[in-house]
């Protein structure tokens, strides 16, 4: 077991003929992901790494039964790509694209919410269920199957933690990068609920960063609904207010979103917050007994 992606995942790549889309399609196939289709308007009839390309998502779904989509199209076109995936009934949509304007995401978020689809991202590395399916841009080899569920707003920092877990002999059920933007389709709370319900997950690692109050909400949620052990990690203790730290969402504004507040909230919910990736692994090991 695992969450969101597994051997049943039939992946569609939106923007498959682009540089990023093509490169990561090869990487995902190499990892063992079942990539069944690609979409590039006007690209119908082509194949990319053996994957058939269609003009529209609707056609790709009809012809291949794709149930998950990963989006590599530029920011200008990404909201439309998400709308197209939603309207075609794709159950899980993973948007890698960075720099989508926030007001576009306000609409996209509520559009997806009113539909039967789930959106991961945007501006995220995607997600992986080790040994089953990689739907993202993370280095697959650092992962190994196991009992730890990860959820993170970050990219390389997640790899860092996964790497430390793997080196410590702690495999992962699923690792989900929810994205570094102010408005994202799937929040910590959503993923925490899924890990809580997933029999394969025995401990959860939550990697947050400055900006917004989603970590604080997650803390409340953990206190009320999560029985499994959770270990936290929060980046940006030294970040100055008012400055965007790379991610559009990583900004302390109006006195809200500091690391200190998030750490305090997690601690109050009984979640220990580590100071390094190695310490995350240690805390997880302790929690698993």
């Amino acid at each position, binding site marked *: 077991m695992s969450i969101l992606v597994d051997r049943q995942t039939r992946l569609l790549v939106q923007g498959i003929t682009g540089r990023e889309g093509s490169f990561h399609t090869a*990487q995902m196939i190499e990892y063992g992901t079942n990539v069944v289709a690609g979409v590039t308007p006007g690209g119908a009839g082509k194949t990319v790494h053996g994957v058939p390309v269609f003009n529209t998502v609707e056609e790709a779904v009809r012809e291949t039964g794709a149930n998950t989509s990963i989006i590599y199209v530029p*920011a*200008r076109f990404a909201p439309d790509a998400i709308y197209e995936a939603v309207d075609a009934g794709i159950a899980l949509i993973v948007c890698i694209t960075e*720099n*989508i*304007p*926030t*007001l*576009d*995401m*306000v*609409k996209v*978020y*509520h559009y997806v919410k009113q539909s039967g689809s789930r959106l991961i991202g945007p501006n995220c*590395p995607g997600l992986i269920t080790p040994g089953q399916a990689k739907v993202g*841009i*993370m*280095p697959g*080899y*650092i992962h190994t199957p196991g009992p730890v569920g990860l959820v*993170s*707003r*970050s*990219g*390389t*920092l*997640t*790899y*860092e933690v996964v*790497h430390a877990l793997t080196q410590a002999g702690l495999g992962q059920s699923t690792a989900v990068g929810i994205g*570094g933007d*102010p*408005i994202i389709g799937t929040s910590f709370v959503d993923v925490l609920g899924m890990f809580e319900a997933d029999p394969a997950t025995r401990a959860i690692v939550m*990697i947050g*960063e*400055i*900006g*917004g*109050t*989603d970590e604080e909400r997650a803390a409340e949620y953990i206190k009320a609904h999560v029985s499994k052990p959770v270990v936290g*990690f929060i*980046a*940006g*203790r*030294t*970040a*100055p207010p008012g*400055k*965007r*730290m*790379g*991610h*559009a969402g*990583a900004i302390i504004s*109006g*006195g809200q979103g500091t*690391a200190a507040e998030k750490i305090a909230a997690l601690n109050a919910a009984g979640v220990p917050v580590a*100071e390094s*990736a*190695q310490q995350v692994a240690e805390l997880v090991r302790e929690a698993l007994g």
Partner: protein
Amino acid sequence: MNIHEYQAAEILKGYGIPINQGIVATTPDEVAAAAGQLGGTVVIKAQVHTGGRGKAGGVKLAHSPEEAREVGSRILGMDIRGHTVHKVLVAPGVNIAREYYLGVVIDRAARGITIMASSAGGVDIEEVARETPEKIHREAAHPFLGFHDYQARRLAFRLGIEPDLVGGFARIARQLFEAFVQSDASLAEINPLVLTADRTWLALDSKITIDDSALVRHPDLEQLRDLQEENATELEARAAGLSFVKLDGTIGCVVNGAGLSMATMDAIKRYGGEPANFLDVGGGASAEQVEKALRLVLADPNVRAVLINIFGGITRCDEVARGLLSAMDAVKPTVPFVIRLVGTNQDEGRRILADAGITVVDTMPEAAERVVAAAGAAA
């Protein structure tokens, strides 16, 4: 992106909001001329991308062109929270009956847009939010349909505005919302929005922040960028596609990934050091990006040591190592540096660097400890 008060006012004016039209001046003579042109009492306001101008002495009245020249000469060139004042706005004095706050913001928790209003105008709204939150009234815009007229009126009624003034207030609230949406703002506020002694509405001070990700579709707004207000290194970094934030410490950081960059800064701090910058070279960590990054970091005279922290993911560590070598070779850093390189093919990568006489450390805590020590030794 931040823009100046006078630029924000011009935008709001374009949406029909009555503003207190002033004149921008960059020299004391221009200030005096503007005051003469406007006549009567004027207010002279420093135009800088930071709050707290008033407390810092950046906002002053003047009752004559001569006084205005004198006040202007004091404000121009002044330093406010690290920002040098290059421009002032000279605006007519206004006979104020009441002051309100009106703002439109991205509400991250609600994944939407919130319109806020308060009868506690003219003061720091964050302070109001902390101390008398009941004085702030909020309306959530519909994600698709926007801000309904009835919501704008409801805000006015909640503020206790008299029936004959409700229409005017509601119109300004809708216009501010429209300006926010059309400009792809993340913040648009009027503080204070005043009711003058003759019962008309006037936006006395306005602030707009534009969503950086949306600037690409607003070339007109991009034109409003004030290069004097921005850190030269940050500008250069943006041009090079790097994410860079200048800080006050002594340890330069070159990291791939935003979260990892912050975590690296945190680690440095934990070992008693102070990071000199945030710098994300992007996920791939190509040789060109690393070289540019190193140049930017080393341009800071405060930097006494550099920590390069790369997680080789899709890009293999041996490639990253070769890129690092060529970058180091090109830049020839004169301060000590510590390299941490982890990920795919890390042994091969470390061997390449070792062959070049460069030691690579294994973990972030170790790297942080070493670079802090190196910076201390270099000091």
